[in-house]
């Protein structure tokens, strides 16, 4: 089954957007890129708040094509905006039933899942940022959507509130089986949430695919903008060592993490910043680093005047390393070169 199928162009002032992409029908696809890349505009076009040239289809429904336009309220697309946009003239219960009345959804299960009972009689003006965004999330679910759009829903929240909402988004992703399109410019959020990534730069698609692949794709480097680029590694918990390290298994071997991350066989994702990856021509001895893995150079791409990103392949898992041009020359790094990757610091993917 296909999800969202886009072949659209849009321009406003001197900004222009051209996106051609077929997005998966389930899971969370992060629309990722620096500010000004057109991420929010893309979301508004998908929602139908603005009209695009070209074609937008979802499943077997055409939403927008020449002379054909399905208005936003008939698309069954729920949008969670950056700010909660709750209706100020209604209390929390009123906001939820506004959506439920029009979709026929039942309020009680959603209220229970998101822990909203105590908030129901409250006025929206008195809610904290985190509470308001939780209500907005519930309201979106109560529209019984076929697609959920989230436009940087955490960006207006502080760290603690984010930590409160993130698991909810994860829960939706895992339980609903609905496609979610999630705009973010935060590497941390994307690393933790995304099953797929649509990397955008200047109104165009830089890369699209499973999150691990896009993070390791040199074309996507520019989508990181000012943020720290890095790689995602999908792994599985093997167990704990006697001295308190957690053993994770992945395609390229084993990674040790200095903290327990979950029960045996739990699926986790770790994030390695590109500048925390060193490359050695031969296996180094006498290093304090725990994670030293054999690898093969897959690709080398220049990122600025002095540095390159080297994409290392570890038996199918790709890891990005940021090194200087000088090191690339000295180590003769070119596709096919066998080497060792030293992961100086590995973290569980979380915001």
């Amino acid at each position, binding site marked *: 089954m296909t999800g969202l199928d886009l072949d659209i162009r849009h321009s406003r002032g001197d900004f222009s957007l051209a996106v051609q992409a077929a997005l998966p029908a389930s899971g969370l696809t992060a629309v990722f890129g620096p500010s000004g890349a057109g991420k929010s505009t893309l979301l508004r076009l998908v929602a139908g708040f603005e009209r695009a040239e070209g074609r937008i289809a979802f499943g077997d429904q055409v939403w927008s094509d020449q002379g054909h336009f399905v*208005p936003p309220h008939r698309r069954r697309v729920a949008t969670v905006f950056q700010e909660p946009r709750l209706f100020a003239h209604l209390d929390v219960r009123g906001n939820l039933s506004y959506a439920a009345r029009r979709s026929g959804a039942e309020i009680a299960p959603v209220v229970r899942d998101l822990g909203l009972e105590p908030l129901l009689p409250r006025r929206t003006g008195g809610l904290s940022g985190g509470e308001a965004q939780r209500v907005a999330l519930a*309201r979106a679910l109560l529209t019984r959507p076929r697609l959920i759009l989230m436009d940087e829903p955490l960006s207006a929240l502080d760290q603690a509130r984010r930590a409160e909402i993130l698991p909810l988004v994860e829960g939706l992703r895992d339980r609903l089986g609905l496609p979610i399109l999630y705009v973010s410019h935060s590497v941390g959020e994307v690393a933790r949430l995304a099953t797929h990534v649509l990397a955008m730069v200047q109104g165009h698609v830089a890369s699209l695919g499973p999150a691990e692949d896009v993070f390791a794709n040199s074309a996507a480097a520019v989508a990181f903008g000012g943020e720290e680029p890095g790689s995602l590694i999908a792994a599985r918990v093997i167990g704990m060592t006697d001295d308190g390290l957690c053993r994770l298994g992945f395609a390229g071997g084993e990674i040790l993490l200095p903290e327990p991350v979950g029960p045996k066989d739990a699926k986790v994702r770790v994030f390695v910043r590109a500048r925390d990856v060193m490359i050695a021509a031969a296996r180094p001895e006498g290093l304090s680093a725990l994670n030293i893995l054999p690898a093969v150079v897959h690709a080398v791409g220049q990122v600025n005047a002095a540095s390159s990103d080297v994409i290392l392949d570890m038996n199918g898992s790709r890891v990005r390393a940021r090194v200087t041009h000088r090191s690339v020359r000295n180590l003769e790094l070119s596709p096919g070169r066998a080497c060792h990757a030293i992961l100086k610091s590995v973290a569980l993917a979380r915001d």
Partner: protein
Amino acid sequence: MTAGDLAPFWLTLRLAAIVTAILLVAATPLAWWLAHSKSRMRPMIEAVTAMPLVLPPTVLGFYLLVALNPSTPLGGLWMNATGTSLTFSFAGLVVASLIYSLPFAVQPLQAAFAEIGRKPIEAAASCGAGPLDAFMSVAVPLARRGYLAAAVLTFAHTLGEFGVVLMVGGNIPGQTKTVAIAIYERVEVLDYPAAHGMSALLVALSFAALYLLFRTNRREAAG
């Protein structure tokens, strides 16, 4: 004050109530359009809507008198339909007051709609509400302070109009003799005590209306 002095009051209150009710409904789509349109026509429509604010009432009244008399298409249509003239009648006063008081209804509503913006409407659409549904269920309740202001201003302004009424309506007791004209008439014959009575009542009414408006606004703001 005599019972005869009260008749113009009832007439005026009836006029103000009818005009306010019609304008709140009729000004809504116009105010919405002015608040959201990006059309190049907008400044022109805005200027036309605001004209009654700056025109001398006698000028407005004169043109309305010309436009509403039975020899014009509109006046003739009314004549044919009702057998009476639109000028020098209560219906004519209503039509004239609708135009005269239009900006007092449109401007508070336009400001309220502009302040609401598109965001709540988009949120409503994302909840499955069509444009009209979203407008009625979100925009109107959010603009309630604008509606209150529009109602009070339109009502109070219609209460006190003089020039337009005199030009279009003349001074027919029970038909077009409003309070303002009755006061003028009393002063002409140097009946100051009667003029005082009616004027004081008008002052009290206007103050009460405005006081109600500002008190409600304050309560709303305090939430």
